[in-house]
């Protein structure tokens, strides 16, 4: 029985999962979140060619374009060389500018001057761009858009969406949003339940149905909240490096996620030196650092024995471009063995 419950030190079960719709990849800044999320997305796309995958960057400091070596924008675009993987970078500034331009174009011909003049300079984008949490809100809108598309069968639909998230704080705010919105809308519902008829009588018999809109929004938010807390549909992959601060933040992140009732069962430990097995490039600094990494790896082993802890090597070169990512991502599906796979870390193409 115990043998049966042993947890693989890889993400094979996730990569081959047919149920997951939302996969979040997050952790402290600079630990390799983009590389890890790109690798998961590539492996899933390679393992399930009949399905469509979307990798979304919700980090305001986007790295996806650099990781794949091609430009992605606010609309989903297929990765060159892969027909079932698309990428997009949510850009709050661009999205807000679009909204601003739309407002300006709608105002054209109606009332020249006044608010229209104000919006000409991108005032709406400037104003709303400075609102805290706008990145998370726009990411959330994107999620809602995808759910709507899937329900209505409109536009491009994706079987699984992988999020390359911003550092921990942003991500927690984003994940809190469905619960927060749900509570907020509940309170709104209570008020509009009583004041709704009065509000509607104030608004006249116009086309604005406040209660209807709120109920629709509430239903959408509730759907997202349910999906995010369903372990068969959503999971969170933590990324860290084998250092104290990263370990501490990972533990806190996991605890926060559990408090949100979100599933988290995988940890990717990046940038490991495996210096014991690398006799050829075994400098004193590498030995000292590897010793430190091992100390924290032991701790990780103790703390996360029921988690998929995936140990990823520090490569000699940058992991950029589809070819390099494919090579590197392989170790998510089949764990890295320093004795046999050591040569791969020196085989990466130099993109510079």
């Amino acid at each position: 029985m115990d043998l049966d419950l042993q947890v693989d030190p890889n993400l094979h079960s996730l990569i081959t999962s047919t149920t997951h719709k939302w996969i979040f990849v997050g952790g402290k800044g600079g630990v390799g979140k983009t590389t890890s999320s790109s690798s998961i997305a590539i492996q899933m796309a390679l393992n399930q060619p009949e399905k469509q995958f979307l990798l979304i960057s919700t980090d305001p400091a986007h790295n996806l374009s650099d990781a794949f070596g091609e430009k992605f924008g606010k609309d989903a675009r297929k990765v060159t060389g892969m027909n079932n993987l698309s990428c997009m970078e949510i850009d709050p500034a661009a999205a807000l500018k679009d909204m601003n331009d739309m407002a300006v174009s709608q105002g054209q011909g109606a009332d020249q001057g006044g608010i229209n003049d104000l919006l000409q300079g991108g005032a709406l984008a400037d104003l709303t761009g400075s609102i805290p949490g706008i990145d998370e809100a726009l990411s959330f809108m994107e999620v809602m858009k995808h759910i709507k598309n899937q329900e209505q069968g409109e536009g491009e639909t994706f079987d699984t969406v992988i999020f390359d998230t911003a550092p921990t704080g942003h991500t927690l705010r984003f994940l809190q949003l469905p619960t927060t919105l749900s509570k907020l809308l509940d309170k709104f519902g209570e008020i509009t339940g009583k004041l709704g008829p009065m509000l509607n009588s104030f608004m006249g018999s116009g086309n604005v149905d406040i209660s209807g809109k709120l109920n629709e929004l509430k239903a959408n938010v509730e759907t997202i909240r349910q999906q995010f807390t369903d372990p068969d549909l959503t999971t969170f992959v933590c990324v860290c490096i084998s250092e104290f601060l990263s370990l501490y933040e990972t533990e806190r992140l996991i605890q926060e996620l559990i408090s949100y009732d979100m599933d988290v069962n995988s940890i990717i430990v990046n940038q490991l030196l495996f210096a014991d097995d690398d006799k050829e490039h075994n400098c004193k600094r590498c030995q000292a650092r590897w010793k430190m990494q091992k100390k924290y790896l032991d701790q990780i082993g103790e703390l996360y024995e029921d988690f998929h802890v995936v140990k990823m090597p520090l490569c000699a070169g940058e992991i950029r471009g589809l070819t390099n990512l494919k090579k590197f991502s392989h170790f998510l599906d089949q764990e890295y063995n320093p004795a046999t796979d050591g040569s791969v870390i020196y085989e990466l193409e130099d993109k510079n």
Partner: protein
Amino acid sequence: MSNLSEAEKRKILRERRQKKFANGGASSRLNKITGQSDSHLNTESPLDNPTNEPVLPAERKVERTLSQEDILNGKEPSEAENIPQVELLKQLASMQNEGSDSTPDLFSLLSSMQKNGMPTANGTDELPSNIPVEPLVDPAMLNYHNYLVNRLKAWTILLKWIVLVPFLYLVTRGESFESASVLGPLSNLADSTNFFMVFTSFEIVATSIYYQRLQSIERNNKVNTLDNNSKIVKMVSMIPEGLLPIKNIKGKVVTLLQYWDVLAMFISDICLVLIVIGIFQKF
């Protein structure tokens, strides 16, 4: 080998993970991480501290006030019962519960609030602070006050005429007493050339005494005579503040009426003086 499916395996593992974070386990895990590195970072876990559950500012506010259900069920926590917003919701709820399917309109809501009063934070029925407030006067007290004022007026008029009639007689028939020299120093008062000065001085003194006494009565009874009796003041107080370009129009009208009261007393006294002088001249 057991026949656990992947889903069952995932579920068991999930439960095992959650168990490790439960019952203080989360904080001890953080303690373990920080302890081994001599760190002073916070080890309080969001899982071990249920009060850390994110609460919306709006939610906090609602918790402090009153829920709709509580309002409808008639539960009235003492802190919430004085909040005007809650009172508004109460009014709405009660109007909807009265059986009417139609939407309560704003005017009926406001008139209902006007009838019942809108409790303030102090629990007293008050109007907004920028509007002068008139305390309601007990009708019995108002009647008593009016009786005292009328009695004061009657006594004032009587005393005035007790003084004025002999004075007028002296002025009109002064020559008959001149030779008798019975008036002594008062003979100058009876001089017809000083009549107007003496009469005006007497009126000022008498009116001042009258108003002193009136104010004393108003203070004792806590009743403003003009505010409660004058129809003009009542009509003026119905004009909403800001409708006319005059500030505190009611206060100005009250002052005007007080001056008019003094002038009216003076004019009526002059009229009576003229009549009495006429009578004395005739006979």
